[in-house]
């Protein structure tokens, strides 16, 4: 199996304390991978490192087959100011950023694509509505529409179904399945293990360090989950300096 991206001994630290510690793993290409682990396990940090929003203090992240430009990323707590006066259509159109950039005009094809994406997430008729009038679920649908339009080969989702009702979750999971059928690479942070088992053939279990990776049933065994929980969430103020040999 080819790797869509490869992490080699990646460590990301906040204030020198590692949030992701010596993680080496390959994310399979054209498949859906779930990242699972307790709170504070470094799941979000790992995604941010993949997008390039945080820098690894050690190790490297490789994209064997492509440039970084083809990544779509949905943060856990999106920093969208939902009071900002912008319409759903304009927001979704930003998904075409790599085509139209900061200065280009959105052509008929772009707007057509945005309308299709809005339709696909079940928001038909909402095109001209201001963002501020959307509910949390509708807003999440709009963000998915933007990602549809981004047409990215690698899609990173950070807890996309938090505080989202069952029906919206089911609709959005259907989009994830569509991406899988399109052979896109999806990496998704999730807490609901049943959701993971039902929709994600691959899983990656984190507890700051990598506990297990591979086919979901083999990675998420009770023993592995127990080990992940046992890895302290604590932030040890007296921790010594990590030497490469000690980690090996």
């Amino acid at each position, binding site marked *: 199996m080819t790797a869509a991206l490869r992490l080699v001994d990646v460590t990301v630290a906040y204030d020198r304390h590692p949030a992701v510690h010596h993680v080496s793993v390959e994310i399979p290409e054209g498949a859906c991978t779930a990242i699972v682990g307790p709170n504070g396990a470094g799941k979000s940090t790992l995604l941010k490192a993949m*997008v*390039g*929003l945080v820098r690894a203090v050690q190790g490297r992240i490789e994209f064997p087959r492509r440039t*970084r*430009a083809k*990544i779509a*990323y949905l*943060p856990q707590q*999106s*920093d*969208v*100011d939902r009071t*900002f*006066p*912008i*319409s759903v259509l304009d*927001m979704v159109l*930003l998904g075409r*950023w*790599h085509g139209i950039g*900061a*200065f280009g005009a959105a052509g008929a094809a772009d707007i057509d694509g945005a309308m299709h994406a809005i339709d696909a997430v079940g928001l038909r008729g909402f095109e001209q509505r*201001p*963002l501020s009038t959307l509910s949390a679920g509708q807003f999440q649908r709009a963000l998915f529409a933007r990602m549809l339009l981004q047409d990215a080969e690698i899609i990173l989702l950070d807890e996309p179904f938090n505080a989202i009702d069952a029906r919206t979750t089911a609709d959005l999971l259907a989009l994830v399945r569509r991406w899988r059928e399109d052979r896109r690479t999806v990496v998704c942070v999730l807490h609901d293990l049943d959701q993971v088992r039902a929709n994600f053939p691959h899983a990656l279990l984190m507890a700051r360090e990598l506990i297990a990776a591979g086919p979901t049933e083999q990675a998420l065994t009770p023993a592995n989950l127990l080990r992940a929980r046992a890895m302290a969430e604590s932030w040890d103020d007296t921790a010594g300096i990590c030497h490469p040999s000690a980690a090996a």
Partner: protein
Amino acid sequence: MDFLWDFLFGPFVDHGFMRRALVACLALSTGSCTVGVFLILRRMSLMGDALAHALLPGAAIGFLLGGLSLPAMSAGGFVAGVATALLSGVVARFTSLREDASFAAAYLTALAAGVMIVSLKGSTVDLMHILFGSILAVDDLSLALVAATASITLLGMAAIYRPLVVECFNPGFLAAVGVRGSLYHYAFLALAVLNMVAAFQALGTLMALGLLLLPAVAASFWARQVVTMALVALPMAAMSGLVGLLISYHTSVPSGPAIVLVASLFYIASLLLGTNDSVRMRLAPPAHLQA
């Protein structure tokens, strides 16, 4: 009827300086509306105020070196404004001090330093002149400066419009697609400073922000989109300039406070009567719909 004619148009027919001041105000309104709208949307109203005050020491040094010369004072003001914007950003980034606190500190320092410097060489009249503006000072050169500023602002805002909007409402997306949002933020700040420099001839450094901000705030009670907000703000700013100049002429008060007070009236009227979140909508909300 003649009386009304004399009252409304006489000053502009009779006096070249009033005509120049009026054109300056109209040009100023054109450029500064979009800047004002974005100052509000970026929640930077108070920072804008601090920036306006920060022009003072720069203008004062210009005054010290060149007397009441427009190019010297404008250049000084622009340099001081941009320097303050950059410094406050740097201080906020590298210390735990919040950006609003660092702007407040910068503003107090700037105001004190500016008044000191002007007082060293000039008279109280000069100080009043710089603080509160004087329409008598609007000559052809200032007019050219204001017109150039308006043009640069409109072109500049058109150029950075999209990244600036995204930087306002979703900076994380901009970062994720690999665009340096701070670049556009600072370009916008430079345009804001430029507009305040242009405004301070007529309005004074203390009030330079008035024509930028008040019409935009007032417009937010009427319009819900960036473009419509700017379009609503524009006539209010222009009217504030016109009526303020007339009041200033007929009552011999400084032009800055007169213009800004008229803009305040627009703000208060919008606050009371506007269609969005106004007092009127709070007291007598329209009946809710079925779905």
